[in-house]
């Protein structure tokens, strides 16, 4: 099953690459605007030994990691507080519903005004944008914690804080983890968007801007390809961590293992 699914995925990607290459070879598309697929892939491979690109990638990765860590540190407690205190949640809800649909990229110009340091800027927009899925998932997960599970601990004389930390938090953890995984994807988008819009000294976004102004479409798309690949890999890694940590949850809900 798993094997066949991976094979199909690989076949799909290979098919797309081949089709793109064939279209490029027919000369339908001017390859000054969109290089041939083989050229892009060669460009992407070149980037692996390009010291400048590697330094940019490391800078973006650092902003992503720091931003995501800070997001988790802010959003999980916020979600717990809102989930555990329904009156506060009701008071804050309209604000959340107003802010959440605003495309996060639209706040980057504001962040540019607020932050002079480029790392601070990127981390700030990541925290703003990536907090939503975690906060929302945590609130809903806490609301769905089995009342009998909480009552059991309560009947042994545990107070509300103990019940929150020992029953509600572990019960909600699989859903919080899913929120973190979504947040990790959002963070990739925001780091690179901020670099594209705000400029700065280093970052994949900076590299992309420079490659584009130097008319190196192959390197520009190659860099974008690596950014996309990073998103896929981080997602896969987080799924693996979730499966390992929350086997009890998968077994319970009957999810495929």
């Amino acid at each position: 099953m798993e094997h066949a699914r991976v094979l199909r995925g690989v076949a799909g990607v290979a098919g797309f690459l081949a089709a793109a290459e064939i279209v490029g070879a027919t000369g339908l598309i001017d390859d000054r605007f969109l290089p041939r697929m083989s050229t892009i892939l060669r460009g992407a491979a070149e980037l692996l030994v390009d010291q400048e690109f590697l330094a940019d990638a490391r800078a973006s990765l650092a902003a992503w990691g720091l931003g995501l860590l800070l997001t988790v540190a802010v959003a999980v407690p916020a979600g717990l507080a809102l989930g555990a205190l329904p009156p506060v949640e009701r008071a804050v809800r309209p604000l959340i519903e107003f802010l959440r649909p605003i495309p996060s990229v639209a706040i980057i110009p504001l962040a540019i005004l607020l932050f002079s340091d480029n790392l601070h800027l990127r981390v700030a927009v990541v925290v703003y944008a990536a907090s939503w899925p975690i906060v929302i998932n945590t609130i809903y997960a806490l609301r769905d914690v089995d009342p009998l599970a909480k009552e059991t601990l309560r009947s042994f004389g545990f107070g509300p804080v103990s019940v929150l930390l020992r029953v509600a938090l572990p019960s909600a953890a699989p859903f919080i983890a899913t929120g973190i995984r979504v947040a990790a994807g959002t963070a990739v988008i925001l780091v690179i968007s901020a670099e594209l819009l705000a400029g700065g000294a280093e970052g994949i976004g900076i590299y992309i801007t420079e490659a584009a102004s130097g008319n190196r479409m192959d390197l520009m798309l190659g860099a974008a390809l690596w950014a996309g690949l990073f998103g896929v890999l981080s997602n896969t890694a987080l799924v693996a961590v979730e499966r390992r940590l929350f086997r009890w949850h998968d077994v319970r809900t009957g999810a495929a293992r």
Partner: protein
Amino acid sequence: MLEITDLVHSYGSHRVLDGVSIRAAEGELVCVVGPSGCGKSTLLRSVAGLIRPTGGRVLIGGQPVDRIPDNLAVVFQDYSRSLYPWMTAANNVALPLRRRGLDRRRRREAAMAALDQVGLADAAAKYPWEMSGGMQQRVSIARALAYRPSLLLMDEPFGSVDAQTREDLEDLVLRVCAHHGMTTLLITHDIDESVYVGDRVIVLTRSPARVAADLPVDLGESRDQIATRQLDAFVRLRAEVGRLVRGGSPTSTVLEKQ
């Protein structure tokens, strides 16, 4: 040990308990039986301090229950929701012992001893979802035992297991309650079970619940799934409880005994 006096509870305008009074002496196993939906669980939750009854009084060991008492343990019917799936059996049993101020090693020892008593010494490292229903309910019972409560409350504890497992669990509860001299209030809708397990059977009326009868069970200390259920005394008492649960009035033969 346990004194429930004139307990009244209403959900909004819907009255569920209508002046229920029950007493249990130290070490006694009292079964409360009544028709489904008659307010048995509300009664148990009031005793456990999980809800604040509209009226009346509950005393445990002379102390009024005005918050959740720290000397009682509850075994719920739904073990699969009451046990924590992210913890092994041993950790589930050990968790409440944090309230007893025991260090990790002591908690572990007490949990292993309790699991041993319910015949699950080998399953300590298993997760609840790796166990059968009967085993899971044994873990719940072990969790209550390890806590060393002076009052054990059981809410339909055998309601979700098959017949064979139910009999095994009934005998298990009889054994461990006698061993620890634990005062126990067991709530059930099963007439046979209330007579087989109880030292006394309290029959509640249909909602709003009142005490219809308080019947002593004269079947001796040791009980046997086959022999006890064949005794004339068992058959008569079961019939009496059955009549009362269906809304009948007490017959003279049983009244004479009281």
